[in-house]
């Protein structure tokens, strides 16, 4: 495939992913660098309030940058001790391993409990998805998913939009157990 073809394909996957994720109430934004993601996260909280941001899955250089940004805004950033916050944290900040364009789905490989809990116990879930990791459909991620599952124990999550229910009168309500909002930051890489 030519370079242009490859680029078109990627743009196509990105826009399809965006369309599908937006349709299930996710907020999708394009960002140019990972620093934009940290700024987005800090801004979403506003400043000077007692808010907690949990980012247990981040590699340490990234975590330091995020913590730094949060500190400037007067926010608390943690990367462990989720069991101390079972009633909830304000923001869970994570990196996706795969994006599935067909359904606007994030795949997060999270055998570590801290990361898992960060995606479950937050009010807002912010997830960075590098555009290069978007595939057409789940079948295209089959090999990668098998690799995760073969390395037991494993916990792999497909996340599509916010937590939802329609159990009362079939009326859609968001945030019944998990996050009230899902923000996806598409990182051009």
């Amino acid at each position, binding site marked *: 495939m030519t370079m242009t073809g490859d680029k078109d394909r990627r743009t196509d996957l990105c826009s399809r992913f965006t369309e599908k994720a937006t349709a299930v109430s996710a907020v999708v934004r394009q960002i140019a660098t990972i620093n934009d993601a940290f700024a987005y996260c800090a801004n979403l909280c506003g400043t000077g309030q007692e808010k907690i941001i949990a980012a247990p899955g981040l590699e340490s250089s990234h975590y330091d940058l995020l913590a730094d940004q949060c500190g400037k805004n007067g926010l608390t950033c943690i990367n462990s001790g989720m069991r101390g916050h079972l009633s909830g944290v304000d923001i869970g900040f994570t990196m996706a391993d795969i994006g599935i364009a067909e359904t606007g789905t994030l795949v997060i490989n999270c055998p570590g409990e801290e990361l898992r809990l960060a995606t479950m116990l937050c009010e807002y879930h912010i997830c960075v998805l590098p555009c290069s990791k978007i595939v057409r459909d789940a079948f295209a991620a*089959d090999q990668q998913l098998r690799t995760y599952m073969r390395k*037991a*124990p494993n916990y792999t999550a497909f996340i*599509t939009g916010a*937590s*939802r*229910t329609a159990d*009362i009168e*079939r009326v859609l309500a968001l945030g019944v*157990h998990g996050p009230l909002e899902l923000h996806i930051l598409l990182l051009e890489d």
Partner: protein
Amino acid sequence: MQNAKDLKEYRCEMQESLDNTFLRQALDTFAVAYRGSRAKAFAGFDINRLVADVAAAKDAVLPRLDELFREFKKNAEAAGVTVHFAKDADEANAIIIRIAQETGSHKIIKSKSMTAEETLLNHALEDQGLEVTETDLGEFIIQLRHEGPSHMVMPAIHLSRHQVGDLFTDVTGARQEPDIDRLVKVARRELRAKFIDADMGITGANFAITETGAIGLVTNEGNARLVTTLPRVHVALLGIDKLVPTLEDALKILKVLPRNATGQNITSYVTWITGANECASAPGRKKDIHFVVLDNGRLEMAKDPLFSQVFRCVRCGACANVCPVYRLVGGHKMGHIYIGAIGLILTYFFHGPDKAKNLVQNCINCEACKDVCAGGIDLPRLIKQVHVRIQDTKGHPLPSLLLGQVLKNRKLFHTLLRSAKWAQKPVAGSDGFMRHLPMMFFKEHDFKALPTIAETPFRDRWPGLRMEVAKPRVKIGLFSGCVQDFVYPEQMEAAVRLFADHQVGMTFPLSQSCCGLPLQMMGEAKTSRDVALQNIRAFAQEDVDHIVTLCASCASHLKHNYPVLLADDPKLADQARVFAAKVIDFSSFTHDILGLQAKDFTGDGRRATFHSPCHLCRGLGVHDAPRDLIRAAGLEYKEAAESEVCCGFGGTFSAKFPELSAELLKKKLDNVELTGAEILLTDCPGCIMQLRGGLKKRGSQILVQHTAEALACRRKDK
């Protein structure tokens, strides 16, 4: 839940649902909305191919079930899971109680599992003094109300926000307004505390993948993620039918399941769990995890040549979503624990013939479930077969036996029909309807006027109608079916006149009889086969290209069921296939074979609408032919809402469940009247009987005809 002793008691229970205005409204809205959202979710996909993929993946499991279970157990245990096998519900519950005891678990949280409903797990746990909390919002609500689910995917669909508000007021001790968003937040708060305190989490599973020993959970709320993460013990209870060899198989099912269940492309969460994951609250930070794999009748089903296809069920609930009977009475009446068409079948296998005996008769055979099934299961056939099995072991009711005896003997049957013509004299009106119903009918059948038996049946008129066509362009055999032979012979005559204009060579073998569908509906399998053979023999000597019938139900039965009924005898099966291949319905023959067009008719521009018989649109897959013909005949065609939903006739169904039949008819006629049409056309004499009878009772002026009649009287140069 099914506790009714007999059909009479069951009908009384259903009347309660029919009188429940909220339920009726909720299910009506849902039925219509579901069709739209499902179509949207599948847009751009070849649904038939996706369904075939699911069916093939599940069918491939059947012969390898033992081997796959062993492999799953080996791989799951290698990853740190303890895998248990439970032969029935009691054993499964006992295993889970034992796990609770051995792990010192007292507080249990659950995510939604139909399998746990099947084993009545909560009752068993609570009997041991364990505290169990359902965390799926719908399940939480019905648990607090001490009810079972009324839908497999939306367990509390029968309840209003007001009922939930009152319930939550009781539970929290504070007034809760009937505001859905707020009620959801109340549940979030109440349940979060339960998650934190729980020792054990119980889930079901949608997939058990043998190649990795992983399970997959498909959910929307995110509660299953917390259930599988926070407590130190996790137990997943799953039917052995959830085994699939590979992740790819699971993904094939995942592609269809949410789209078919709720019209979602995918659920909010799909969770894949392999082995004993990290768990900070467990000793050694390692989850104590158990998979309890349940048989409970599934292995017997897997070996059954007919019922093994039930393994293809992915529990999407779509068969309830489209079922016209479910729409009227809801899941508590249209199910025991499992609901809808699949529920009628599973109840027999999982909960026994006593729970299934009334339920299984409540199928109108409209085939809407078969049409929508994610695994392509022939649900109506299986439901009938369960009925047959129950009757064969528990005894056949007298009316059903009598019908069998009469229909088996064509001469006796036709003699009875001819004498009915005389017997009806005292009550027959001059307008073709009974003036009042004979005493043998009960007052609940009075929602429609019933037709009288015709003065002269079609078989007696035929000798005067037949004509030799010198060079026929096509040769056909006419199959009249009983209703058009003895009640509406004029419909057959109309078709004969129309065909005669177009050089169709016609024969009408006099030894043909009832198609046998009523016997099938009554669960009389043996006589149904006898009658099929009789009809095949009646046409065997005829040199015809097609066997044309004006009755969609006859057509569908002749075409699809005859080869199955005679499949046990290879020679007869061959004859049945040849016969079935020739069978064609009136509209398809006229439209596709004769190719009649506007130039063949003189129109009058009157407004007409069409009721699509179940066995035409779903049974035979015919949608456009009759509508195209109506337009070609120069009528102004106006489509009615829900034109492909059942009219409520269903042959013997309307006799067994008159209240349900009347409600379905009411909806149908309301939609017809909204079109402003003067003429209502359809392609099935049974539907005509129902529609005409209902409109007559309403005092409506709408003319109900068979499409053949409307075309025949608008022939050019007639």
